């Protein structure tokens, strides 16, 4: 091997490219700069993957992140040192909070210049440390291949997450043989995948004997490709199921056993069932503050909690659980399914009564809204979007009211179709997320549901969409306010709308047209459906749809921060306590 190795010396930059080829990477989202010039030169001479030139490094990471969310593959972004690297941070932190597997390659100043405050130098390993699963600084060309192998391995296994590989410029010019390892051995990293059989048996027994069972699933089911196993289990048990914001699509939203999303803007029935159940199965979810609200209030009712998660540190972090099961959710659910199949569950009278209770909660029709004031209701736009796209689109969103309406009113029946920033709540993800989805599935319908605040945080990507002819449809719910901020100011700050009005908005139609896209403005409710049909019929065009919506509309139900699950506000005038 050493003879071959010596006769095939290639540069570090070429090694980086060969590593990406070995990992079967199809797209690299990036932006060139001084420290990565050698790598970009190597990209020029290859055709194994396509490089997508974004307009801002943040968008490169978001697009790679969405590509991963849509496909399950590791997303790859490439940025230069210094400002290129720091621009990528928001993207990396966003992926980290939602456990998205990414490999982000950043250029670094040459090794001899490190620490000397060189031009475009930033300590990328130090800066990213709190928001990556792991990071590496490569200081020898011979280490590039093994580091890249480890980076991909760490990113995609266990609880997935972003990994940064920081490569100094001189290293990418040095020569070495390319040997890509077949396997990775790390004594310090061996994530558990198989759940404890005894615990799984105990969990199934509890679920079968439960009087008021409930299943609550999160992003782990989507990321773990465990949707089919979940459906099988929920069907066999005949129990109600709710998804978190990150878990939507993990269980089909149009199925009658689905009680809607839970949490701060979850449905009445989902939140009440969470609060009142006697046995709760949590799968790939983490009981965060937006999901169960105040943990003390949650504990005011006693229930037995079974928690399945690949990450031991997610278990008993905010909520003490009774039956912890550490393992890959797909494998644990498959094992549960086998046990349930042999037990042949029967529909007990208790379960029947539980469903009657749930139907009564469902009868509140908590997602109903008044659609008769002549203004376009944002909820109505989403309902029509769902109809026009037959529920099959990739829907990306930014962060705020529009995100909640998209989550509530677009009924996701498949996993990996709802692409949003759940954990970090990053405004500006919507458009680059839509780009990542469109690259992942070029003929699919991709809708970016956004607000006039969020869209302007990465509006420059309209240019990228032009360059690559991406037929994305932007659904801008334009209420001229930072709507979620305005809503909180209305509820909790006596209508003092401090800095939440968006003055001086651009003419979005002209803006879209200036990039060569189609722009539309829709001002009347009766035009919503027709405009959506027209837009989605333009299969090869990017269409920017500016819906002028009711400024006063609020997101309901709502649980105020620090309140409990059953303390919902159901409309402008009605709290749950009034019902």
């Amino acid at each position, binding site marked *: 091997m050493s003879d071959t190795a010596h006769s095939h010396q290639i540069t570090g930059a070429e090694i980086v490219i060969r590593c990406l080829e070995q990992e079967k990477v199809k797209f690299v989202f990036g932006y060139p700069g001084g420290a990565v010039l050698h790598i970009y030169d190597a990209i020029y001479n290859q055709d194994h993957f396509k490089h997508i030139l974004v307009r801002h490094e943040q968008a490169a990471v978001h697009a790679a992140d969405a590509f991963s969310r849509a496909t399950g593959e590791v997303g790859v972004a490439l940025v230069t040192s210094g400002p290129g690297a720091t621009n990528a941070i928001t993207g990396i932190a966003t992926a980290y909070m939602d456990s998205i597997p990414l490999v982000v390659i950043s250029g670094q100043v040459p090794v001899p210049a490190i620490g000397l405050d060189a031009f475009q130098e930033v300590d990328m390993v130090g800066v990213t440390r709190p928001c990556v*699963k*792991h990071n590496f600084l490569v200081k020898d060309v011979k280490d590039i291949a093994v580091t890249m192998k480890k980076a991909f391995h760490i990113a995609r296994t266990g609880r997935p997450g972003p990994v940064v590989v920081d490569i100094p410029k001189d290293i990418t010019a040095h020569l070495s043989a390319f040997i890509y390892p077949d396997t990775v051995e790390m*004594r*310090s990293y061996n994530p558990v995948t198989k759940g404890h059989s005894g615990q799984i048996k105990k969990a199934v027994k509890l679920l079968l004997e439960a009087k008021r069972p409930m299943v609550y699933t999160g992003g782990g089911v989507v990321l773990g490709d465990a949707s089919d196993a979940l459906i099988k289990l929920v069907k066999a048990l005949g129990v109600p199921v709710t998804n978190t914001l990150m878990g939507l699509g993990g269980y089909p939203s149009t199925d009658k056993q689905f009680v809607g999303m839970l949490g701060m803007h979850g449905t009445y029935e989902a939140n009440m069932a969470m609060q009142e159940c006697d046995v709760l199965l949590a799968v790939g979810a983490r009981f965060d503050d937006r999901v169960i609200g105040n943990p003390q209030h949650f504990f005011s009712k006693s229930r037995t909690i079974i928690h399945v998660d690949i*990450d*031991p*540190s997610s278990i008993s*972090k905010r909520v*003490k659980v009774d039956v912890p099961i550490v393992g890959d959710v797909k494998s644990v659910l498959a094992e549960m399914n086998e046990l349930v199949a042999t037990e042949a569950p029967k529909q007990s009278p208790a379960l029947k009564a539980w469903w009657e209770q749930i139907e009564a909660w469902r009868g509140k029709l908590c997602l109903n809204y008044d659609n008769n004031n002549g203004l376009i209701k944002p909820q109505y736009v989403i309902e029509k979007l769902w109809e026009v796209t037959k529920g099959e689109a990739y829907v990306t969103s930014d962060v705020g009211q529009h995100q909640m309406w998209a989550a509530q009113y677009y009924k996701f029946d498949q996993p990996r179709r709802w692409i949003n920033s759940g954990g970090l709540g990053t405004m500006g993800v919507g458009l680059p997320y839509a780009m990542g989805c469109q690259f992942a599935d070029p003929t699919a319908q991709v809708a970016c549901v956004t607000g006039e605040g969020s869209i302007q945080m990465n509006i420059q990507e309209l240019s990228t969409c032009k360059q690559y002819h991406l037929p994305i449809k932007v659904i801008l719910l334009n209420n001229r306010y930072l709507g979620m901020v305005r809503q909180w100011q209305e509820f909790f700050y006596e209508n003092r709308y401090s800095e939440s009005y968006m003055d001086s908005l651009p003419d979005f139609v002209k803006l879209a047209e200036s990039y060569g896209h189609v722009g539309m403005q829709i001002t009347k409710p009766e035009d919503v459906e027709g405009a959506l049909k027209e837009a989605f019929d333009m299969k090869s065009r990017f269409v920017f749809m500016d819906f002028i919506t009711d400024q006063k509309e609020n997101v309901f139900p709502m649980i105020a921060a620090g309140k409990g699950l059953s303390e919902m506000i159901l409309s402008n005038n009605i709290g749950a306590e009034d019902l």
Partner: protein
Amino acid sequence: MRHIISLLMENEAGALSRVAGLFSARGYNIESLTVAPTEDPTLSRMTIVTSGSDDVIEQIIKQLNKLIDVVKVLDLNDGKFIERELMLVKVKATGAFREEMKRMCDIFRGRIIDVADGTFTIELTGSGHKLDAFIESLDKAAILETVRTGASGIGRGDRILKV
């Protein structure tokens, strides 16, 4: 409650900052932290003295295990263990003080490792409590400088933390 956590991690650049960063990011206490390579130079052994409720300690152990560079973590408080800390104290040693300092040092089984005109430097090893007691027993005005390493800990008998 006070806990002593021992861990083995890859002896790589930045490994210490990952642990220190974890503690500050998640708001955990660090009373002391000591680290040095082991007999296997690819591994570092770290002793962290921290405090918190059982839930917090459980999370600390889990979060430490989650760090990619961390190979093994042991909460020494789960069994019997020994802890030792080293302290160097520079004290005034003039006139009557000189004899008094020598005597105190002997009582605590310390050693005088540097003698100069007017000062002694005393080396003392023991539990944190013992070192505290020594400081307490000295006249405050006599203490010129102290330096402590923080605790190192090891399990008793066949409790062994090794890869």
